[in-house]
């Protein structure tokens, strides 16, 4: 029996070291499943790390949660799933806080929530509610960006080229978060770059599966049909080119005497 304290420490460090790769998430998930008798403890670990770490780690943990619940469910450890359902609001608050610092994570949260909903870890109703809150945070963050720092407000009165002019459809009560009028804390350059790299990595992995054809009869045909454009200029051009090629080939493969004969006729 492993020392509970040690297990906790190890799991914590694994959460902190999560990155965009699947293996890092798998490793942490397997560890948590191995010590499932300490499920409660490890779950609190996740919450704790979500609240303590920077934006990137939070996003990584969020992606990890999706993966983790998947594995837990597969192995029949519904405890983890249940606890996560219970605390999902807290998780979302931690990953995309409403102080504006979580704007970059809003998209992550949305993505993961939808994935969890589609795997029926979450109720559609819960997701919809969270969605609404998120939209405020998202747009609010944008609002801050648009209105730029106060210094700019003075000379930025000309809303014409300013970022502050939001289209009516998007207008929401101006955001006044905990940060006051100072806007969200400025993100660290390194963190931004790290985040971009991790996003690219995730995107790459996601693209690895795009060729997959959904199961079902004629699925592939349907897909191709969907992707096929109407007959257009391009097709005519291709036709012309193919015809020209064919003619050239035809000419080239004629018997010698025929070729000469043709020339003679000309």
């Amino acid at each position, binding site marked *: 029996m492993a020392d509970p304290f040690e297990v906790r420490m190890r799991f914590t460090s694994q959460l902190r070291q999560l990155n965009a790769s699947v293996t890092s998430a798998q490793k942490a998930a397997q560890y948590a499943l191995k010590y499932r008798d300490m499920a409660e403890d490890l779950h609190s670990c996740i919450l704790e790390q979500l609240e303590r770490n920077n934006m990137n780690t939070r996003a990584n943990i969020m992606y990890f949660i999706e993966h983790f619940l998947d594995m837990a469910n597969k192995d029949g450890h519904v405890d983890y799933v249940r606890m996560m359902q219970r605390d999902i609001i807290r998780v979302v608050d931690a990953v995309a806080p409403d102080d504006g610092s979580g704007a970059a994570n809003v998209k992550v949260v949305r993505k993961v929530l939808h994935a969890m909903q589609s795997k029926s870890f979450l109720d559609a109703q819960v997701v919809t509610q969270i969605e609404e809150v998120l939209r405020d945070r998202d747009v609010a963050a944008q609002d801050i960006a648009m209105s730029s720092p106060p210094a*700019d407000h003075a000379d930025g009165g000309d809303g014409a080229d300013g970022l502050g002019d939001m289209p009516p459809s998007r207008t929401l009560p101006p955001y006044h978060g905990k940060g006051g009028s100072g806007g969200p804390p400025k993100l660290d350059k390194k963190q931004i770059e790290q985040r971009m790299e991790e996003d690219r990595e995730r995107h790459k992995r996601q693209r690895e599966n795009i060729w997959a054809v959904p199961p079902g009869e004629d699925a592939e045909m349907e897909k191709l049909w969907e992707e096929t454009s109407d007959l257009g200029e391009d097709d005519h051009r291709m036709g012309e080119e193919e015809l020209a090629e064919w003619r050239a080939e035809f000419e080239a493969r004629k018997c010698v005497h025929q070729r000469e004969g043709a020339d003679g006729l000309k």
Partner: protein
Amino acid sequence: MAARGGFRGGFNPQQLQSGYPKGQYDARGYGQSPGHGTPVSSFHGSPAVQSPFGGSGRGWNNQPQFSPQGQFSPSYAHNNYGPPTGPQGQYHSGPAHSPPYPPTGPSSQYPTGPYRGGHRGGSFRGSPFPARGGVRGGFKSTQWHTPSNNARGQAGQAEDSEPSHAASHQSPSSHAGPPSEKGELSAAESDNPFRPSKELQVEDTSKEDQPKEEKMPPPSRPPPTGPQSATPNKFSFSMKNAARPAVAAPRPEISSKFNAAPAAREPPSKPAQKAPPTRPERDRGGFPKNAPTEPASARPRPGVPSGPGDRRPLETSRQPEPTPKTRKVKKIVRRLKEKPTLPPDFAASKSVFFRKPGNESVVGSGTYGKVFKGLNVYTKKLVALKKIRMEGEKDGFPVTAVREIKLLRSLSHKNVVQLQEVMVEANDCFMVFEYLSHDLTGLLNHPTFTLHPGHKKHLAQQLFEGLDYLHTRGVLHRDIKAANILVSNEGILKLADFGLARFYAKHHQLDYTNRVITIWYRSPELLLGETQYGPAVDIWSAACVMVEIFTTRAIFPGDGSEINQLEKIHAVLGTPSRKDWPNMVEMPWFPLLRPTYRKPSVFEEKYKGLLTPAAFDLLSSMFRYDPDKRPSAAEVLKHPYFTTEEPAPRQAVELKDIGGEWHELESKALRREKEKREKERARAAQHQHQQSGPKEDGPESSSSRDRERKRPNEGSDAQREAKRPHIEANGKAERSGQTGSSRDLELDAASGRLVPVQDSGSARNRASGNG
């Protein structure tokens, strides 16, 4: 032809090369008649691939060339024919030199006919045609030592016979017999004038000879013509023994053997056909045993006597039979000797494309590998050889290279660089392009030559014509930049480096990687993480290049990071408003990279004076933040700048007179040279100051230090230097520029940052940049 079918069925369907050799082998062993002799030569042709005569090799390898396997395939093929392998070596050398046969014609034929035809056909189309052509050529040369006319008929026979043989003799042993014959032939060849082949052949023969000797003893004919007699004997032995592949007979004897032995053995079936050359007769002597049995039973075509006989008769009818043919053969030999009048340095070249030794021939390098300048020793035409980087490739031939080749083969336009062939040589794979003397970076940095406004317009026009072609074809270039745009010495511009290019879906939006395009030329949507982009990204890059054509400086010379690059763009074009770009807030990284300040555009103020009114209007439309609002390449070409505004586009034919070559590489070297001199001057000045007095020392030394700090960066990339003045011109840039050493590192990274699609590539870049 039928031959192929037979080959594949009987032997290894896997590799064409292997298939051919087999067929040949069979033909020889069975045919024994002169026809066999010819097959041998064809063998040579195939093995030649490995040999210095890359050409012939290619001809056979056509298909293999596409895939990396091609390179290896030849060797495999040989190996497969366990027994034949030994002989093959001989064959190779022999064939290449083909001279052994009086007809020597073959040797010349290899390089010419099968050679190139095969090459191109294979490399470009991969269609069966080229391959066939090559095969036939080979057959012809070898089989019909004398006149080429016979070649076809013989080849046909040989092929026919082969399949049947194959069917009957599936075991290698049967093949072995033929190889030995070949060995003999090759030996004979070695005796002949071919220089390179001789050595190879000799070695091979020696090896072969030993085995032969063992087997040889039994043969009866040894005494008279050592080799000749031996070979026939061997044949007979091999046939009998079946299992001995090593049988290859002595080479020198070949000629004699041909003359004497063939006649004896084969007279029944093929003698008439091959009659022209005396050799065939000799061969017959050696082969007869096999020929009669197998052909008669198994082969309809050979109809042992009938099939071949028919064809041969035809051939023979064309040309006078035995004696005249031999005479002709001799004549041909003379011609062959005359043909290879290559200058010594070319003759010494191991490649068809002569390159200066060492790094002298390098005209460019990057993450993709190196580009060499080469001269085709036969046509004397210049080519650019792009070596495909295989180091560190764990999964074999890089898929990016395959993609690039596939893309390039589908393109043919005057403003797109033309891929002539793909070549495998000495375990390296090269893409062979037409050679152009300049690239845009080199040209714009040329020390003396300046472009006329008409030239600039013509260059810009060609740039967009090329781009329009690509986009109509559904190709995104994704790495448009000055260094990737080549200019011939007649002022023709061509887009190059399709290493990042891809086909895109025109009618629906797909997801692509956003790590593309050298960062200075990267559009705002890509910098903000967009993965669903289209041709507008190329338009942005092209607009950057167009500015460079006018000002010779990059318009957005960032430090290599996305954050700084966006700042650079904002510094010139201002920060985008929601009105400018409604979808900006949807960009994945907008929350990360949104501007925290507002800035008006200074583009007009800065560039209006440097451009004509129409050019300014055109550029402003292309530098729109919203990709949907940027014009397409076709629309750009209809802009008044190209259609109505004076001066009209004018081809820069003057480039012919400037001499030399100006690529990024050269201009970099030039700059480095300059920097060195400046540095030395600065150092000297510093020395003086130090001596003159302590007061001046402080400020002076610090300023010189500054300079030195910046120079290393510049040295790393020619473009940087050029752009340096520009950087200092705008406040933002300077601020970031003063961050000192960290900036240097970033600059390096920026220069190296080609942002390949694959992460490994970019990681490599960055690592090298930082290192």
